[in-house]
């Protein structure tokens, strides 16, 4: 038996409840009769059977058989078969190995993971609320993936793609204590969650677990015919929620409904969730805990279903995922406005490194725990707190997904030194939430509750660059939470009221908003710009946006009219004179695409465990370092969210295009040529684009049950070549990597192409690098028979027509036009502290479009250091032919 990992819960304090240890054992054994026959390619079951039969035609038929594998992959061609050989195994193996289509034959191995809870008796007498759970993981040394699906054999790449493209279960180990979250105080008041129906969506619950006297029912939604939890995840989750009071559970009297939606192999499908959610609605569940997350926010059936649940007053609590520490990496469904998302912080209030960044409520988790273990824990703790809270409220009618979220947000304490996209609403404060909920009057609230573009670091990235006349408008996405009813509307229009004594009239504001607030929430997109009269003014300006929300008054007997609630959104900005053209850089965001919806592979091919580029590229997320560097050098960086035809090139020094996946409108190409002639500089970070590699990185997605093939390479090089061909330049379809040094900077070039063509009189700085293309083909990925999807770029593109065949561009869309709100000036001053109650901050998507720009010459070196995995950079300066051009991957032109 191989003992690969051990998890132990250790009681740090003396405690009267039993201390329990959880051990994970791994055992690896050879299955003597079974052999894996690997083929040279992917074949149907019949073809595989024929090959084996012909190879074994001299062996007695009773001595061997093909082992049936019944799984969702059986419908698809496979590159291996499991064969049981009873006698004469050795000679049979030799004949098998001689077959031309058989690559190799290896013994079948069986890996067993067992999770064992052991009691180690009791000692001491202090109350159990003091129990702290410490968890120790020894990392598993093997590179082989833990879960084995038939098709994942021998391919870590494969396994990883399945995991990342589908929703996944986050392993949970209890480590929180009711006391830290002050739940014990609520217990002393007699609130133990009685009468609240809680649904746990997980791997089920083991039947004989002693704690689960509260379990009302267990249902199975998977294709495994069992209700039992073979994995242990669901049992832990349920335990945290409702185990006995003497130990560490939080809502001991709640009524538990256990939904088994994950198999023991941690497999799940959207369709199982849809059916299970319908049942939860029928059963009038109050709080639903979901410790899963996946990147697919474009999964409409799932997203719609979550809305439907909340609209039926189910309060949904969801983990936000383990994809931190990148920005904008919230997982669905925790990113939905109507869902309460939970992340993890440690006892020092640092956000756990593994936690996705986004706007949420953070629950304490223990320092030192590992990614993928902590998160779902946090969500269970919050679920349980949420029903605990629900049961304490005297007027149950007032508890709904919006009011619960409002109470949690309004009571949360802000973490110091962390920006709002990372910390969300801050740290949970249960007692304050309880007080707020018990004196709650139905109302609307905003999240964030104010916009202070000068406040750092909380309002990063907004606070990192002042605004100026002529810049791209700064857009702040605000969530409106409406506790008055499942539907609501904004009365008339939001009003912009500048404070005259505080130069509010130097600011122009435009507001767009949801036509209907449903379910329980909507958005308010506030675009902020500088008025022309402040073009050379410097200072701080303030005002507020006022919104009135109305909902049908359902509970009001006397009046069948509407309830209304008016909220103000204070706005504070720093204005500077418009910077000179040479200091302004425009980042092209419009031509970046990402997964979902299409499959765009990672820019760095070495990152095989997460091949989908689902974080996209953005100057404020994965290019944050570059942004900060440019800012520190005095450049202003703006983001272009519209076609190239939509900006005035005479205002900008440089256009920056990084890893663009999108195609270009013919009008854009023409306009860019004219802009360059008129003195605009252009910097392109291209990436790789190699069709044979693209075919190699194709994979079968277990969640959508279809093949995914990249829609472009790391960048859309053919489209870029169309764009730059007029200057006699082209990128190649090569693929290179390696280290190099430039001006004393050591740099790593991760995956990228080379320059194929360049004008004779241009300057090329070249470096010879390793040819990754040929090596990549040698990777033992999957040998692929092309059986399915083709290039679907047209499906996701804003530029191409949505049909097959020759790609044709759509008509060029109109440039965005903002209609500025007519100001209603107030002759008053803002309250001294704009920093009001840290009210609702919800999980709206990070949508930042600020004004920003630079001077090509001084930049080139540092830029390289900042972003080393680009394919190549070339910039030209005023006139294309006298340019600095840098190139790697080709030693000569």
């Amino acid at each position, binding site marked *: 038996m191989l003992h690969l990992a051990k998890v132990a819960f250790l009681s740090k304090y003396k405690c009267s409840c039993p201390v329990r240890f959880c051990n994970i054992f791994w055992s690896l054994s050879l299955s003597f009769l079974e052999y894996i026959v690997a083929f040279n390619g992917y074949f149907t079951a019949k073809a595989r059977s024929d090959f084996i039969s012909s190879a074994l035609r001299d062996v007695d038929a009773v001595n061997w058989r093909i082992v049936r594998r019944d799984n*969702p992959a059986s*419908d*698809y061609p496979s590159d291996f078969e499991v064969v049981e050989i009873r006698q004469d195994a050795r000679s049979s193996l030799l004949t098998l190995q001689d077959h031309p289509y058989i690559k190799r034959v290896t013994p079948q191995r069986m890996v067993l993971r067992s999770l064992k809870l052991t009691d180690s008796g009791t000692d001491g007498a202090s109350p159990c609320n003091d129990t702290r759970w410490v968890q120790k993981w020894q990392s598993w040394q093997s590179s082989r993936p833990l879960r084995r699906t038939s098709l994942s054999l021998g391919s870590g790449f494969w396994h990883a793609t399945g995991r990342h493209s589908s929703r996944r279960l986050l392993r949970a180990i209890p480590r929180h204590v009711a006391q830290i979250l002050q739940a014990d105080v609520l217990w002393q008041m007699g609130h133990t969650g009685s009468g609240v129906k809680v649904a746990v969506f997980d791997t089920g619950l083991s039947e004989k677990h002693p704690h689960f006297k509260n379990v009302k029912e267990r*249902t*199975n*939604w998977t*294709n495994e015919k069992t209700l039992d939890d073979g994995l242990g995840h669901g049992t832990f989750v349920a335990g945290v929620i409702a185990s006995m009071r003497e130990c560490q559970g939080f809502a001991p009297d709640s009524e538990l409904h256990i939904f088994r939606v994950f198999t023991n192999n941690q497999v799940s*499908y*959207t*369709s199982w969730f*849809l*059916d299970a959610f*319908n*049942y939860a*609605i*029928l*059963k009038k569940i109050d709080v639903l805990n979901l410790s899963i997350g996946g990147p*697919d926010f474009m*999964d*409409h*059936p*799932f997203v*719609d*279903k979550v809305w*439907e649940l909340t*609209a*039926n*007053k189910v309060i949904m609590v969801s983990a936000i995922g383990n994809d931190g520490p990148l920005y904008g990496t919230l997982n669905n469904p925790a990113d939905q406005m109507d869902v309460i998302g939970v992340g993890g912080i440690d006892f020092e209030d640092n956000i756990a490194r593994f936690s996705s960044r986004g706007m949420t409520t953070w629950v304490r988790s223990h320092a030192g725990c590992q990614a993928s273990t902590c998160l779902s824990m946090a969500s269970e703790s919050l679920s349980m707190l949420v029903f605990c809270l629900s049961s304490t409220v005297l007027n149950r009618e007032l508890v709904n997904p919006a009011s619960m979220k409002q109470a949690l947000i309004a009571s949360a304490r802000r973490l110091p030194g962390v920006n709002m996209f990372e910390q969300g609403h801050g740290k949970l404060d249960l007692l304050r939430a309880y007080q707020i909920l018990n004196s709650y009057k139905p109302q609307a609230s905003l999240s964030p509750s104010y916009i202070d573009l000068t406040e750092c670091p909380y309002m990063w990235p907004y606070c990192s660059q002042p605004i100026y006349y002529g810049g791209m408008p700064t857009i702040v996405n605000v969530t409106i939470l409406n506790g008055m009813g*499942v*539907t609501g509307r904004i009365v008339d229009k939001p009003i912009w009221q500048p404070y005259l004594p505080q130069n509010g009239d130097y600011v122009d504001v435009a507001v767009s908003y949801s036509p*209907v607030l*449903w*379910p329980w929430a909507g958005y308010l997109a506030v675009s902020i710009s500088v008025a022309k009269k402040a073009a050379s003014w410097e200072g701080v300006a303030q005002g507020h946006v006022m919104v009135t929300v109305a909902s*049908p008054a*359902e*509970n*009001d*007997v006397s009046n*069948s009219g509407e309830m209304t609630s008016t909220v103000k959104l204070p706005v504070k900005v720093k204005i500077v004179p418009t910077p000179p053209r040479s200091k302004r850089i425009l980042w092209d965001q419009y031509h970046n695409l990402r997964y979902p919806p299409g499959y765009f592979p990672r820019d760095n091919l070495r990152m095989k465990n997460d091949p989908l580029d689902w974080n996209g590229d953005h100057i404020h997320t994965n290019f944050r370092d570059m942004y900060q560097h440019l800012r520190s050098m005095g450049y202003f960086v703006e983001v272009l969210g519209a076609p190239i035809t939509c900006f005035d090139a005479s205002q900008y020094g440089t256009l920056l295009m990084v890893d663009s996946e999108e195609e270009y409108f013919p009008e854009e190409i023409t306009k860019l040529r004219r802009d360059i002639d008129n003195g605009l500089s252009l910097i392109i970070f291209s990436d790789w684009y190699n*069709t044979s590699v693209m075919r190699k990185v194709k994979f079968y997605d277990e*969640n*959508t*049950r*279809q093949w995914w093939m990249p829609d472009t390479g790391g960048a859309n*090089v*053919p489209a870029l*070549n169309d764009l730059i*061909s007029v200057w006699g330049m*082209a990128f*190649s*379809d090569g693929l290179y990597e390696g280290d190099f040094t430039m001006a004393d900077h050591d740099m790593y070039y991760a995956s990228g192409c080379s320059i*194929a*063509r360049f004008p004779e009189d241009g300057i090329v700085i070249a470096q010879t690098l390793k040819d990754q293309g040929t090596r990549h083909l040698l990777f033992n990925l999957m040998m692929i028979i092309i*059986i*399915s*999807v*083709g*290039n679907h770029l047209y499906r996701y593109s804003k530029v191409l027509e949505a049909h097959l*065949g020759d*790609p044709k561009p759509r008509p060029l869309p109109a440039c965005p036009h903002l209609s500025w709100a007519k100001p209603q000036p107030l002759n008053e001053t803002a309250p001294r502290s704009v920093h009001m109650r840290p009210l609702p901050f919800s999980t709206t998507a990070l949508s930042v479009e600020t004004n920003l720009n630079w001077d090509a010459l001084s930049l080139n070196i540092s830029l390289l250091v900042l972003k080393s995995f680009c394919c190549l950079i070339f910039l030209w300066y005023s006139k294309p032919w006298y340019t600095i051009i840098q190139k790697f991957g080709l030693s000569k032109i």
Partner: protein
Amino acid sequence: TVSTKILRKKRAELSYLHHSLQQTSTNESLTAEERTIHDRTLLEVRDSDHHIQWKVQFILGNSSRQISQCRNSIQGKILLTDELGYVCERKDLLVNGCCNVNAPSSSQYVCKSCLANGCCSVYEYCVSCCLQPDKQPLLEHFLNRAAEGLQNLFTAVEDHFELCLAKCRTSSQSVQHENTYRNPQAKYCYGESPPELLPI
């Protein structure tokens, strides 16, 4: 050095290749998909002995019964359907949960937006249409043949209204490839068949 021309040509070839692959693969994947739906969500019982024990109480007789409190469909953005089959706008909902039958927006047993296969674009109309007394045989037929995958849900349903609320919701039968609706326009079905499968 590869010229742009060659790249362009390669790209054109690739797109042609994809095109032809797409056409062959669509057919294959559709059949595989259909099979998956039948196998896994088990629209119909395979085993004729295995009927689910449904307990739905249909109310016989006329629909003009008087009740003092109504359950309704709760979730609607604009519309609601009450248990008597009236659809109305939220503003015309009475305090007792029933639609105000005198309001101009209210009407009973509305099948607006519903197709011949029993699938509708609007959830509230689906529920209202499903509540029509003449839909009862269809629903009974469905319940008798409803398969294991849907058993949890339909054995827990207690009356005609709950059945219609549950039946009209999108479910495992509404999707293809797990992340796309079979028919995004008409996805709420009171009828027996799943929504018509539209190509993506």
